[in-house]
């Protein structure tokens, strides 16, 4: 099993664990944590997909010159994507936490089952 | 007087209210008129013959004497061959046979029916009760003399008169009509006040118009 496969497998496992947690745990905060785990898993998958064994990080400095870049570094795009995704995930998580806070303030509960007044 | 015949106030669909006086608004108040023979004598004679040969009896048995009328329709007596038949509605009848005793309550209906018949019309009093009260001479509820209330053309005495007597009575009536003397309707109209006074004396809750068209 290569590192890449391991990374991707771990990523998917995290995704699944996260989703499972998010879908089974009633507590909003734990759901948020679960989603964070799932996001991390996704990010890991992203990295894993962009990984090329034996290459270095896509940073152009003294170690890797521009001319060698194409052969020496891994694909930089997934890395950029991961960065963006992390930022966005952070935003969403923050928003969810804000919601959790407001929900707790107004409804004094963190159980997702208590917020079913809108249905049907 | 019955509730329905009293004055009442009604509201029209458009909201206006007005009064209804049933006896005036729903019944014709005109008095009966005397209708003299209008045509030449020979024509009137023909008409009188026709009237006499076409006696249509109102099918209204006012008392027990009505039982004697039924045999007239049977094969044994068969009054039809004399031009006599029974009609179910006063409008089409011209002979009213008061069959036996007449209670005050029935008298009211009899007057109404008689007045609804079209002239010339005839009244036959059947049985002693119509003549002088008969066996009901002391009854508090039976009239004693039919002639006080309606213009009688022929009385047929008996208690009861048999069908043969009735046939004889009808033949007598025919003679009277043919002689031009069957003018009971006119007598009634001429002496309308008198008849009405008599009628109203016994019918104490007079709740109909003076003449029932």
């Amino acid at each position, binding site marked *: 099993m290569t590192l890449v496969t391991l990374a991707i497998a771990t990523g998917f496992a995290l*995704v699944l664990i996260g*989703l499972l947690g*998010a*879908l*089974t745990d*009633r507590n909003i905060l734990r*759901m948020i944590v679960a*989603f964070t785990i*799932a*996001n991390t898993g*996704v990010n890991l*998958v*992203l990295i894993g*997909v*962009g990984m090329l064994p034996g290459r270095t990080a896509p940073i152009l400095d003294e170690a890797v010159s521009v001319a060698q870049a194409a052969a020496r570094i891994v694909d930089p795009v*997934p890395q950029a*994507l991961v960065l*963006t*995704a992390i930022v*966005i995930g952070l*935003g*969403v998580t923050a*928003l*969810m936490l804000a*919601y959790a806070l*407001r929900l707790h303030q*107004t*409804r004094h509960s963190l159980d*997702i089952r208590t*917020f*079913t*007044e*809108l*249905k*049907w | 007087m*019955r509730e*329905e015949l009293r004055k*009442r106030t*009604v*509201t*029209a*669909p*458009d909201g*206006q209210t*007005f009064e*209804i006086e*049933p006896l005036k*608004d*729903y*019944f*014709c108040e005109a008095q009966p008129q005397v209708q003299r023979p209008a045509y030449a004598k020979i024509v009137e004679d023909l008409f009188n013959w026709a009237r006499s040969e076409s006696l249509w009896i109102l099918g*209204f048995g006012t008392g027990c004497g009505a039982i004697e009328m039924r045999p007239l329709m049977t094969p044994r007596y068969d009054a039809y061959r004399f031009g006599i038949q029974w009609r179910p*509605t006063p*409008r089409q009848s011209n002979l009213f046979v008061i069959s036996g005793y007449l209670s005050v309550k029935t008298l009211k*209906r009899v007057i*109404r029916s008689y007045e*609804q018949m079209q002239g010339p019309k005839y009244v036959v009093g059947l049985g002693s009760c119509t003549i002088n009260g008969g066996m009901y001479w002391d009854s508090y509820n039976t009239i004693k003399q039919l002639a006080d209330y309606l213009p009688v053309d022929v009385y047929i005495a008996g208690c009861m008169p048999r069908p043969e007597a009735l046939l004889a009575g009808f033949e007598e009536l025919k003679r009277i009509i043919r002689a031009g003397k069957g003018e009971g309707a006119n007598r009634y109209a001429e002496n309308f006040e008198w008849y009405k006074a008599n009628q109203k004396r016994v019918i104490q809750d007079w709740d*109909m118009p003076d003449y*029932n*068209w």
Partner: protein
Amino acid sequence: MVSAIFILAIGLGAAFLLGLLRDTWRGLAYALTLAALAAMSWIAGSWLVALAGGLGPVEIRTAGFAPPFAIALRMGLPEAALSLLISLTGLLSAVYMRGTLMRLGRRAMAVLLIAVMALVGIVLTRDAFNLFVFLELTVIATGGLVLLSADPRALGAGFKYLVVAQVISILLLVGVIFAYHATGSLNIDDMAAANLVTLKGGAIAFFLMFVAVVAELKPFPANGWALDIYESAHPAFSAILSAALSAAALIAADKMLSIGGPEWLPVASSLGLVSFLGANILALAQDNDRRLLGYSSIGQVGLVLVVLGQRDILGASTPFIAGGLLLAHAVAKAGFYWLSGLVQGRSLMDWTALRGHPVLIFAFVTFVALLLGLPPFPGFYAKWGLVHALAADGRYLVLGLILLGSLIESGYLMRWFGYIIKRPQVDLPPLPSLSKRAVVLTAVAAGWALGWIWGEISGYPNLLLSIPLLFALGFLFIEWLPAWVKNLVAIAGLGAWFWYTFPGYDPLHLIYAAIILVGGAVILVASFDAKGRRVGFYPPAMLMYAGLSMLILAQDSFAFFAAWEYLTIGSYFLILRGKKSEPHALSYILFSLGGAFAILAGLALGAQGVLPFDVADLAKAPARLAPWIFALLAIGFMTKTAAIGLHIWLPGAHAEAETDVSPMVSGILLKAGLFGLTLLLMIMGKQSLYGIELTYVMLWIGALSALVGNLLAAFQEDAKRLLAYSSIGQMGYALFGLAMMNHLGWLMALMFVINHYIYKSMLFLSVGGVAKRTGTRDMYRMGGLITLMPLSFIAVLIGIIAVSGVPPLSGFGGRWIFYNAIMSSEYRLPMVLIFLSGPIAFLYLFRLIHTIFLGQLKDEHRKLKEAPLWLILPQMLYVAFLLGFAVVPGLALRHVDAYISEFFPAHALIWDDITITSTFGYWSPISIMVVVGCIFAVLFLWLLVLNHRAQKVKQFNIVYSAERPFRPETTHFAWNFFAPYRKALGFMTLPLVTRFWQAQTDLLHSTAQVSRRFYTGNGQTYAVHMLAFAVAVYLIWMGS
């Protein structure tokens, strides 16, 4: 031209700028927001103008690199249109939310700007990951904007949304990265070019992306979260969500489909169909307005998805059709949500508050029409094109389901409209806010403008520009005038149009034209009776007349169908005006729309994609399809003539309509169906389906209609219902005549057309006049009105003699021709029913005249006056015409007779001086009239001589078994008039048909009631739905 990227830049920049402002400078912040949104709209608008002017799509490369190294944007015509839609919706919503935004401050405004910017970004971007980013931005912005709502429940809804959004984002992100891995590019066009789905792992990558994007469309049934937001969010935000987000998500889905290729089109179609049908069915059970609108949104989006999925056959017309549907939906739904902000209650009934605000009602009507795709709105053109394409390609299932879904949708929307107009008004007046109303009206204007635009680019003559329609719409602008002025204008308009079009008619069309235009004008004379302004009467009435007059002029199928829709809508609004007409108007419009869909499908099948399609070319329809086309069209037309089985809407609709509306919808409107049938039979002739001759089936339907209509009429207590059922019977006769497919049958049908118009209009007017005076329509409450209303009596008398076919009036002519017609026809058995129903007509006719005019006059009617002059006047015209027509039927008929000879040369009549001779018999109307008149006069004189002194007596002077009547009510024999007949044949009046249709609607409703339980309100459950949905899509995809 400003680069399109500035739309994004301005949005983003302004949002940042807002963050720099002081929190207290709210006015400035708000101005800045509006300015930014306006600028974005302006840029999008200018692009739209430029692109519509012929400019090709423009690629925008950020950072100056070509993809895949940088993100590419594209500005094409669809993108420009949707960008404009999004930014305008944002702008208007911002205006609408002024109060809320000022209260919440710059952050809220910034979030709004971000939301709009992100939505535009979704539209413009060609980069998959960028798409993800914008979608996430939308999610975040949505999460923020949901909190704008004053509704505390929105908090929970927003959180559920975020939960689901997380799941979606995971799917999307994984999909994107694998797609990138497979193709080495993030650019959507590159992915498409690389044929992603065929690459290793690419298919699953695409599947994940596709599911995630489709999930943003809130597909049924994985959409509980969205409904909660629709229900609880601020209406202006719901407007954005429904109009802008849906548009953006749809274009995203479109982009995905461009990657997925044709293999994924059926999947998209099925998902769309499920959404369209499911959401609409569930909407049936909704009582909350915003939730209902949410369901409707989901349905509409589903429909557009179907269109996208059908792009393989729609080809170049896809943007036209999808755009038409989408824009109509967006404008209407945004308008609806804005309108809902004006209404204070959240139940559907609370919308009764709109009553008394004609402008808002007009807005509501416009939105409904936009949603339902009624002409002249874009949805109409779109559906027309879609249905034709589907029919041409043989995708009948899709076609049928789309029409079914549309019918259900019209069911709840029309029902809602009925509530607004008819239910008891709640005491919560609409908010007076001028700015909010202005926003709503902007949407209305946009709707009409779209109608005009779509008319212009449709390739057909613009529906909005036809003279009759403009005339009808013109009445909207003179609503402030008194009714009599408008009436004059209306009559003049009808007359002028008749005079203007007169030279173009052949005899057959002339008959219909005369009935519709001249006859309509005569009925309008009765409308002078109305007092005040009579708001809301003339526009629909004139719309109906416009539709009718356009119908008979229509050459191609498009004009025909549009006219059909006009007359349906117009008459619906007319019928709805009646006092208790709400349920009947609803069933009318549902049957009519159902019928219209059948017609649409029939026409589409006939056209086989060849457009424009001349109606006369139906004759050339392929033999395989011809019987089906015939059946569909016949069913459509027969809903209008209320043939048995499709008749249940008629009695209530005609009976509950206003006095002068009843003759319009009975005397005139029913003829539209007959006209259609005439045309159909003339063009297509006899058709057989599975060995059964369809005209023979129609013969039976006609005969059954005649029988059941007449029988039911005999048992009615309500005078107008009686007349209504009688119409069913009369239409049955006419249908029967047409279906005989011979010369005399047609002549008879046309004679029925004329006669039925005259006597039914006359009877409805006189009965309406009586009902107006007596305040009731129950016949047994009337009675003895002959002396008080002699003219009405004469009208009814002449009317019933004519209806019953007794000589010497014109009805006899109809019967005579009828007998001659069946002599020359080879069908025997259906005649038995017709023969039976003939005398039954006497039953209800006698009942009509007896229980109203004869018998005992009631207390409260003793001072009634004759019906109003304006109602009497047309009746007397009809009486005169009936008498005239009775004497000289040839004036109208011999030309028609000659005309029919072109189609059926055999058995033409011979019109001598005074005698009309057929192959079998002869008939001389004048002689009959003279003979009967002479005998009558002699006998009358004879009776006068004998009886001239007759004593006039009053009503209780009757022999009454020596008793006397006490009350007129108990003396008037009227209620349950034909009790013995009911004993004998009452079993035939069991409401089987009503029960059948009731069972259908009950089934739909209980389905809706049961399946809505699916949405438990639990956010986790919704997330599970989403995953299950993904699995389901996967299965569908594998399956297809």
